């Protein structure tokens, strides 16, 4: 267990994504789904990258997934694990793995979402191993 965690920079937020960041403050991870083609996608944006429809809606993700890949950044003041996590909903997102043994991570490991406060008081979705 790493006792110390890095400081999380404030995310850039736009009109397209402010809903996502409002939800993270309430402990929810939102994704976007297209009403025209039924496609789910990440990162969230107003226009569906599968079909370019603007008819898209937010929905709450389960917050559960598996590590697709990761790398422990050793050359940092506070070493940290960056990862891509594939969510149950089928999309893969960049994140950090926290509350973990940095030397014990593995691809396909099951993880769940949790949140960290960033600079500027936003809430950032990160993942921890399912115990």
């Amino acid at each position, binding site marked *: 267990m790493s006792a110390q965690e890095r400081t999380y920079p404030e*995310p850039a937020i736009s009109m397209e994504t402010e809903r996502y960041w409002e939800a993270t403050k309430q402990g929810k991870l939102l994704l976007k789904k297209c009403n025209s083609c039924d496609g789910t996608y990440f990162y969230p944006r107003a226009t569906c990258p599968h079909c370019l429809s603007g008819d898209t809606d937010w929905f709450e993700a389960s917050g559960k997934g598996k590590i697709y890949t990761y790398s422990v950044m050793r050359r940092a003041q506070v070493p940290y694990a960056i*990862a891509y996590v594939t969510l149950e909903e089928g999309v893969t997102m960049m994140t950090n793995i926290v509350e973990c043994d940095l030397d014990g991570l593995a691809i396909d490991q099951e993880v769940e979402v949790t949140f960290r406060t*960033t600079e500027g008081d936003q809430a950032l979705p990160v993942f921890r191993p399912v115990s």
Partner: protein
Amino acid sequence: MSRSSKAYIAGIYEHPTRKALDKTIPQLHAEVALGALQDAGLTKDDVDGYFCDGDAPGLGGASMAEYMGLDLTYTDTTETGGSSYVLHVGHAMQAIAAGKCSVALVTLAGRPRAEGLATLGARNRGEVPELGFELPYGPVITNMYGMAAMRHMHEYGTTSEQLAWIKVAASHHAQHNEHAMLRDVVTVEDVVNSPMIADPLHRLDCCVISDGGGALVIVSPEVAKSIGDRCVKILGQGEAIKHLNAGKVDLTYTGAVKSGPIAFEEANLTPADMDYASIYDSFTITVLETIEDLGFCAKGEGGKFVSDGNLISGTGKLPFNTDGGGLCNNHPSNRGGMTKVIEAVRQLRGEAHPKVQVPDCTLALAHGTGGSIGTRMGSATVILGSNDA
């Protein structure tokens, strides 16, 4: 002269500096431009097309055109990171074939060492749509490539020792390059025992950071005829953009799966025809995935392919990066595509260092990678031939 070519590379120049404390970026652009024009036996007044990318200060190509006093009828500032200059070779060929210009100048210059910049220092921070979903997690170039290597190892059993062989081969070549930053020959053990930077990439899996630059002069067949047989034929080119595909992430392959076949088809050649290959080598994993994607071996077999010195000139089946590449020689402005083209031209002219020159080198490939491997990247491949190819 059997194979036809729509355009030729007539001039090349690689700046000898690796740390440019006393020069500005525009100054470096002008110095490499002059070097490449002199190599071609041309002057700046012959240039009617100019190609640069985001490392050139100012408004597109206009500021540098003014600085260098160029009189242009054609410009292209396509930006795909380190692959830009390989892509510019193709775009220059197309412009020349369309009659839009006849002498195209391509320049690259930068001084990240002198400025103390990390590799992502110059990134555009405007309203980039993905930024909020990435930057807070601490992505840097080393851990982004680390994640690709980690997944490739998981899916195909690739090992750190296999990746190390790529650095070993580059170091064998760099020992003969007086300008190379790292000239010591290293072993597989040296690589895997060097400090871990971002799992599973060690320090010696990473390229150098250097100042400097390079330039190319690309000309029409008519101009090439007046210059002579040092001109190198451009036989085929391909380019592609790969991205995260709405969240369907796969880091085990690169844009070379598209750019490679397009280039080989245009040249009517195959990977087996290549006497030499310049492969973008920001990290060892970059080379391994690219070699697979270009078809030099089957997907997943890259680890075996690069092992046991198979990339060393004079020993292996696929001599690569005989200047020492980004892994040992230089990586000017954190963009290595330019020097990939330059060393391929040297090989085809028979002007590489004698210790690494491929005998009778007639056909060669140069490949550029920009951005981050497997995630959001540019990919460009050119197939080149000697003047008598």
